[in-house]
């Protein structure tokens, strides 16, 4: 993942402009472009054609795994591997094991979801190139990489300018 792509970025100053720009860029047939913003924007996913995140599936499966692990572990340790008579309670005391099973469900689900998010976002990433240092503060950007369908420097620059970009520059991403 260490290689970064060259391309052209348009810097925008408002939320409305960047959403419109992303929408237009997608309409022009570009598929590998990125829209950058300092905060999540309503409608940006639709504008970029991003599908709903798949992380919930990971959460669900990890939760089920945690639950099964908790169930099997409490059962195996208490009723199979080393049985102890505690206050005459049954070796397999399911109701008393539910808190443990529940906590493990949550723990597995939460940590796996975080791992899935890191994977999905391609982070942690060492020193990724930054198009403009203000993009994490108050500016927005649309970046089109050089290997995208129908990429043409002149065309892309004109497109960005027509969309109201405050600045158009060659960048690496």
């Amino acid at each position, binding site marked *: 993942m260490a290689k970064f792509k060259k391309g052209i970025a348009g810097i925008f100053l408002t939320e409305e402009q960047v959403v419109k720009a992303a929408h237009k860029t997608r309409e022009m047939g570009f598929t590998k472009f*990125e829209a950058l913003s*300092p*905060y999540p924007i309503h409608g940006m996913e639709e504008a*970029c054609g991003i599908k709903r*995140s798949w992380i919930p599936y990971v959460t669900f499966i990890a939760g089920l795994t945690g639950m099964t692990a908790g169930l099997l572990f409490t059962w195996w340790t208490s009723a199979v591997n080393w049985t102890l008579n505690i206050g005459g309670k049954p070796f397999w005391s399911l109701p008393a094991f539910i*808190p*443990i099973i529940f906590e493990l469900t*949550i723990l597995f689900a939460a940590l796996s979801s*975080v791992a899935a998010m890191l994977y999905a976002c391609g982070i942690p990433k060492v*020193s990724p190139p930054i198009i403009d240092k203000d993009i994490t503060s108050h500016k927005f950007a649309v970046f089109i990489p050089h290997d995208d369908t129908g990429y043409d420097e002149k065309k892309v620059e004109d497109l960005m300018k027509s969309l109201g970009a405050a600045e158009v520059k060659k960048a690496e991403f």
Partner: protein
Amino acid sequence: MMKRNQLVLGNKTLKDITEDIVKPVETLPSKQWLSLFLSAKVLLLFYISMIAIIIANGMGLLGVNNPVAWGTMIITFVFWIGIGHAGTLISAILFLFRQKWRTSVARTAEAMTVFAVMTAGIFPLIHTGRPWLDFWLFPYPNQRGPLWTNFRSPLLWDVFAVSTYATVSAVFWYIGMVPDLATIRDRAVHPLRKKIYGILSFGWRGTAKQWSHFEMLYMLLAGLSTPLVLSVHTIVSFDFAVSNVPGWHTTIFPPYFVAGAIFSGFGMVVTLMTLVRIGFPQFKDYITIDHMEVMNKIIMATGLMVGYAYGSEFFIAWYSGNAYEKFAFINRAFGPYAWSYWIMICCNVVIPQLFWKKSFRRSIPIMFTVSIFVNIGMWFERFVITVTSLHRDFLPSSWGMYAWSFFDTGVLVGSFGLFLTLFLLYLRVLPAISIAEVKPVMNVGKETHGGHHG
């Protein structure tokens, strides 16, 4: 139609918001911060020496004895764990309820949770008496059988609940901070600062795809934290309720403990927020009087729930017809520990009633004072539950009193040193308000934009 109040005051631009929030991180500390930090640090050193002396000499230094075998360690553990709950309530539960006002207080409340749970976690570890054997609390393959832990014990449930809670809330807090750490990274001038925040921010860039996954994860973690936080204090209450001691063995304990935890936690949030507003005046535009008022309303509501629980316990003690239960409650209110009971009632039920009046809810000095009383009252609630139930149970021949010692005071007071040191450091090195979360709600309540999906 009801008009919404503005969530962010002062007609800020996006740039203003970034600059306001990262200012404490990028400037040198003020004299007030330094003096507070040094005091907290001294208190922390005192705490460390207290713990060292107790571990070196044994639990006998504390007031625990027979019959009162649970004392300051358990009381203060429950106190700190309870404080943590308000942070998760604000960051997770209010998020699921789409309460937009939560955005500006969520980060700091969640930080409070993480530090409070860290502070709390130390107590049961020392309470075991031989903390160097604390790894026995976890089930691991060993050469004694293997002898596993007893999964039927509420104390073991607590090990799992508190460690899961600590892990998940720390992760939730940190992941929410990643985009803001990237903001600090990109603003950094000094290469070392750039490097440190570059590592901390994982190389976050804020692409639409990243935001899409990030928002989904945030919602999932909020959804997972919500049942988790309710389970944690439920399980803490099981430590008491699963035993058969009169005054502990009641089914009301889980909801009563959860309400009390949220009550005490909001008390601490208000205490800290009033101080943060004084220390960092630019935050007054984000943590407005409206925010404080809403939290005071929650304090009043949960205070009433706690008051209802106190009443209900008394009613059941009479209605159950159980002589021991009845005695336990009469003893609480009129026995040798009656003073602690009435301090609790006064701080938790009577004083928060001031908040019925709107001008009191919006007055910083009044809310600060009330929040301090809430903190005191909730510590006494746990004292009342733990000590008064144990000191006189079934057999009058085995009645006794808790032998409060200097070391009890030492660990109680000292634990604030740990908490405040962590909290003060947090205020200076991490963004104390969520930059990326405040920006989308900056126009809520403004004439031109309107919160169209509010």
